[in-house]
């Protein structure tokens, strides 16, 4: 068995007096598909944002592909990472946001090519060729010249996925990527993600409230509560036979609210 691609070691995250993550540890193997579920405010988004270096951490260590994420060695001491180190580490990871966060002033194609051209110095022609492949993959090749404002929510989110993929990250993070969409548009995005999960060996971490999708998609489900992992296991086990009281209560509520598991 290979080494974990992500090793989270006892990290702590505080906002002022509020402790959001309280000594969290976990490991993710290369190629693993992980679903993070749990009640609102339990810290699911926070852990993704920390992996994307959008937040700082208050304590603990994270290794990605065996390298420290928030630290670097100077002589024989570990010191906080500088911008240069973070920049290098960010190459490994991509993220898709709940609200897409497309660049509204650039057409779909430019949204996808901007980062490869700027960060990797890829020539426009090459970047566009690859972008068209990706847009084709998410079923939007014909929208390459549209502006984001002209797309539906589902289309925007598919563009956002293509944009993140354009940098060929090893790890992809998805934070409730369908929860801002009209119910009818959810499916088209989930289809793209299903295809992605099947066809690539990328490592994927997914925060979602779509239990049905989490079930089909994930190799492993982590149930979060109050900044801790309360329960984890194969989706079939967690959803059908949760052992923890909190997990049971949460699933009951979600089901009562009309969601299918």
């Amino acid at each position, binding site marked *: 068995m290979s080494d974990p691609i992500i090793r989270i070691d006892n990290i702590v995250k505080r906002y002022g007096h509020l402790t959001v993550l309280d000594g969290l540890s976990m490991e993710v193997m290369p190629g693993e598909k992980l679903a993070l579920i749990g009640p609102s405010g339990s810290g699911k988004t926070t852990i993704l944002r920390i992996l*994307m*270096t959008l937040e700082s951490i208050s304590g603990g260590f994270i290794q990605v592909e065996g390298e420290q994420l928030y630290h670097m060695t100077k002589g024989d001491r570990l010191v906080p990472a500088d911008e240069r180190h973070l920049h290098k580490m960010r190459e490994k990871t*991509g993220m898709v*946001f709940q609200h897409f*966060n497309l660049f509204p002033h650039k057409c779909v194609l430019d949204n996808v090519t*901007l980062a490869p051209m700027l*960060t990797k110095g890829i020539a426009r022609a090459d970047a566009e060729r690859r972008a068209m492949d990706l847009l084709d993959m998410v079923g939007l090749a014909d929208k390459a010249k549209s502006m*984001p*404002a002209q797309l539906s929510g589902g289309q925007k989110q598919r563009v956002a996925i293509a944009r*993140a993929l354009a940098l060929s990250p090893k790890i992809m993070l998805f934070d409730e990527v369908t929860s801002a969409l009209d119910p009818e548009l959810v499916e088209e995005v989930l289809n793209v993600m299903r295809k992605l999960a099947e066809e690539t060996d990328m490592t994927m971490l997914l925060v979602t409230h779509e239990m049905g999708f989490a079930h089909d998609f994930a190799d492993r489900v982590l149930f979060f509560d109050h900044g801790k992992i309360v329960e984890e296991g194969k989706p079939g086990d967690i959803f059908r036979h949760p052992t923890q009281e909190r997990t049971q209560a949460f699933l009951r509520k979600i089901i009562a609210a009309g969601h299918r598991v």
Partner: protein
Amino acid sequence: MIDWSGYIGLILEGAWVTVQLTLMGSALALVAAFAAGLGRLSRFMAVRALATTYIEFFRGTSIFVQLFWAYFVLPFAGITLTPLQAGVLALGLNVGAYGAEVVRGAVKAIGREQREACIALNLTRRQAMRHVILPQALPLMLPTFGNNAIELLKGTAVVSLISLTDMTFQAQVVRAQTGSTLIPFATILVLYFIMASVISFGMRWLERRATRGLDGVRA
């Protein structure tokens, strides 16, 4: 018999000075606004402090005081400016200080989400600013810049108090020479209004161009 056509000609000469002051002042203001506005968002404490000092100083003291200093006090420091230079300097830096806040506000208005998307795509701060933030912030700034340009135009009337022969000053001269108050003042009021209208018309045109294709983005 008063030679009105001649005196109106004098006022038009003043109008030309007013136009020059407005154009050059706006150019200086634009440069100062971006330098100081982005300076205030800098990572470096010293740059922020410098930008803040400039902005607070020029927004804090009155344009009159700034004009009088540029004209009467700077020479004692060995810098003698022509009235036109002094006027452009004071007006440009004054309006630039207000513009700096507009630049800063617009850049900050391009929300956290866009910045985070840039980080997730591994753009550097410079790249994010240049390719993502500023192109979106610019259309937000334009309407206020238009208002600032009109403020600057109106501010040029003040330079008549330091004997720069702008439109208002020429109106004063014509008034002294002809004894008529109504005609010179009514004339320049209309001229100022025309100039202001040209500015706001031009700005609206620019704004339409800059927001083309962005419809619905800020809904």
